[in-house]
């Protein structure tokens, strides 16, 4: 029923050098996968390719439902989302930002109200609905990014260093949100971090990225 992601032999090279080589992994079960690795090891590139934001030089990203491969068309693109390290806040209210993904899907106003309300409450921003999003703190902005993603109810949710630029208090809040999400068992969550302790607190499955290869995995 749920969407599965299979990355096979992904390779990617930039002008600066080879970033990914022969990266393969199957994300089949709902849960929280943590990609660990030092800066520049290719974690973000792997995420961007898996989230269909970039094309690999070699290899393939495939999606399956009920054992059958599905086309990587707009309907699949709308079942996955990536939280970028800098989320990109629209110059509008918190509500408008969180509702963006639903508006572009043409959802009815009532449904948008309900889903955005739920998502904002989930990340603790329910009371800031009508505040200008650009006036939020860094931690709140990150939580808005999560709410904006959750509102579209993704089946695969990628998060690229979601706590890299926020303080301890907000990191704890974001981790708590991710743990609640993981507990709901409805989503494949794939996040990157270079904080080993955080990976241990959150991960169902831990993947290590080193020199562009997925070298180790541990449960």
């Amino acid at each position, binding site marked *: 029923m749920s969407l599965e992601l299979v990355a096979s032999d992904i390779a990617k090279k930039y002008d600066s050098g080879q970033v990914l080589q022969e990266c393969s992994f199957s994300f089949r079960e709902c849960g929280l996968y943590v990609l660990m690795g030092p800066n520049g090891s290719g974690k973000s590139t792997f995420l961007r390719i898996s989230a269909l*934001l970039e094309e690999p030089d070699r290899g393939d990203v495939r999606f399956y439902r009920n054992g059958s491969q599905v086309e990587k068309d707009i309907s699949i693109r709308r079942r996955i989302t990536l939280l970028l390290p800098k989320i990109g806040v629209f110059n509008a209210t918190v509500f408008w930002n969180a509702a963006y993904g639903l508006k572009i899907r043409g959802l009815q106003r009532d449904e948008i109200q309900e889903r955005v309300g739920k998502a904002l409450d989930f990340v603790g921003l329910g009371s800031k609905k009508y505040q200008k999003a650009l006036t939020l703190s860094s931690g709140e902005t990150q939580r808005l990014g999560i709410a904006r993603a959750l509102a579209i109810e993704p089946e695969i949710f990628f998060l690229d260093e979601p706590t890299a630029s926020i303080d301890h208090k907000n990191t704890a809040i974001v981790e708590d949100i991710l743990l609640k999400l993981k507990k709901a068992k409805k989503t494949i969550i794939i996040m990157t971090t270079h904080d080993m302790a955080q990976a241990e607190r959150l991960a169902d499955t831990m993947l290590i990225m080193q020199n562009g290869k997925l070298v180790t995995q541990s449960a």
Partner: protein
Amino acid sequence: MNSIIEGFLKAFSLILTLDRELVGIIILSLQVSGTALLIASLIGIPAGTITGLMKFPGRGFIIMLSNTFMGLPPVVVGLFVYLILSRSGPLGFMGLLYTPSAMIVAQIILALPIVTSLCHSAIVNIDPIMGQAAATLGATPYQKALAIVREARHGIFSGIIAGLGRVMAEVGAILIVGGNIAGYTRVMTTTIALETDKGNFELALALGIILLIISLLINMVLYVFQKKGAQRRP
């Protein structure tokens, strides 16, 4: 000194009594400049957006051309449009010379580079992360472009207002192609020039005051949009 004060008093009287000639000139000015600006915006905003978002052959040339034409002297534009629309010109058969349409054409040429250039700048100044954010949330390429245009809206409006300022204050081009015909192609700036020559300062001053008020309003709107646009966090 007394004649200046007297001129001002008569000018205010013309404004307060809504003098028919004065009102007619103001309405024609707004119609000509408004139409020119509308058409310039309808062409300039998509042109600025496309050059801001897409890479294609000739893009650099279009950007360079619109930047260069931002400072076009109005009399040169007037001369160019005159030559095109005059009886012996390529479009002379249309009979547009000395009509409000000719004035609109001249003002479109003046406003278009400003609207295009400032719209382009507004678009390219938007952080590329905004387009990526829209894409991660499932936006199609068209929806992604719309999201960027929405983010650049304050800068785009500033471009439109700057274009309005340019055409409202312009006299050289419309004097040449409009002919300053009373009740037909006589607008605020050309009337000021003519009435000053004639020594009839009341109407010139009254129109000068109205132009200043319009200019003040344009700048107030521009200030508000620039302030709103500057709220974006770096």
